[in-house]
């Protein structure tokens, strides 16, 4: 086409529907020493922003591209292994 159009097209990449992580005012930080791999945070996260990694998929990490900082994981963690840190 010789004429250019401005169209709302997005490719399937991280954050193509919006990097909701930019909404966050508090960031959950996991203390891997205290973590007992119970996976409650992974279960409760409403944004599926907690990923299971490692060979046995039992280690949890937070996907900060999508984590909105709601704090539910920190609230649910029975071992106080997640703390909410104010975003700078």
């Amino acid at each position, binding site marked *: *086409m*010789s*004429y*250019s*159009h*401005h*169209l*709302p*097209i*997005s*490719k*399937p990449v991280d954050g*193509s*529907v*919006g990097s909701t992580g930019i909404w966050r005012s508090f960031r959950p930080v996991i203390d891997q020493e205290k973590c007992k791999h119970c996976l409650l945070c992974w279960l409760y996260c409403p944004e599926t922003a907690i990923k299971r990694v490692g060979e046995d998929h039992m280690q949890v990490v937070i996907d900060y591209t999508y984590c909105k900082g709601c704090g539910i994981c920190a609230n649910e963690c029975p071992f106080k292994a997640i703390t909410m840190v104010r975003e700078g």
Partner: protein
Amino acid sequence: MVVVTEVLTGNYSVAHAVRLSRAQVIAAYPITPQTTIVEKIAQFVEGGEMNAKYMRVESEHSAMAACIGASATGARAFTATSSQGLLYMSELVWWAGLGKFPMVMAVVTRAMAPPWSIWSEHNDVLAHRDCGWVIFFAESNQEVLDLTIQSFRISEDERVIQPVMVSLDAFILSHTATPVSLPDQSDVDDFLPPLGSRRLPFILDPANPAAYGNLAYPKDFMEFRYEVARSMEHARDVIVEAGREYGKITGRYYDSLVEGYRCSDADVVLIGMGSSVGDAKDAVDMLRDKGYSVGVIKLRTLRPFPFDEIRDISRGKKFVGVVDRDFSFGFGGIGYGEVSSAIGGRVPVQGFIAGLGGRDITVKDYVAIGERLVDMADKGLEPMSPIWIDLKREVFK
């Protein structure tokens, strides 16, 4: 040029135009008075006269969704509806317009309930005035056929890439048979090349996945609206070009967004749209015989709105009257509001409301309207709130 003349209803004129335009996907959901459009197309497809995918969907909402899907893959899509059906479809009508999906939809204008009505009124189409669709109003069955064919070309033009609506009045056009001239298939093929993916700025392709219309933050949003606004402005030229080219194959030229009838030397001009403009023209002939200097402007397109054309034709006139087969409660006629914004106070504009829910707007009504406008002009009267024609005032005593 091989010309065949058949006696066709407005609805069959649409169906023949869709057949001649080689539409590839038809989404069909019945509603009176549109049904015979998709019925006739079903017959064409079933009889092998059309090579199209005919989808019997479960609602108008799905009909438009199917057309959007078809259009997004580069197929030429068509559907038709009326009144309640158009309202049910509404969410997706906006998607098609704001998303720039080329397609054509015939809307047989019909009043909305309550009370139930199957007869003509323009509020169904006018409720979709702002969705990014090019909107035509047809006066005759011939115009219905001609505008439907042109609509595919306009819709698919790279400067436009927007959907197009062709409005025809319930029963007055949809079910009334008149002689209609059908262009030759090879002429239509020359006028309307196949669509295909290469003529579109974007298609959905599983081999190259992409999402269309995702969340846009305020910092990115306005430009998508401006893209549609710009396309609608380009549509003005594209409509005129298509109308000229169409004239070359048929002898019927549609080279303006409006049609003026006996306007150049008129003191007073009536403005309207749809089937009743034909009656207005007859009335003007009668008024001229009586010595009244009256002309008519037909709004062939409502979107894009013919600002310049109306401004030019109405310049120096003593009075303009707008006859609306619609009403915006708490405001007045919708056409009246639009025409007034084009005229910008340079000529007094009087609104008339007529023909709601299919009440006849007769030639006699138009003669009376014309005489009244001439009288207002002669007496130097100011325009007043909209005048309701043929209203049973005694009901409200």
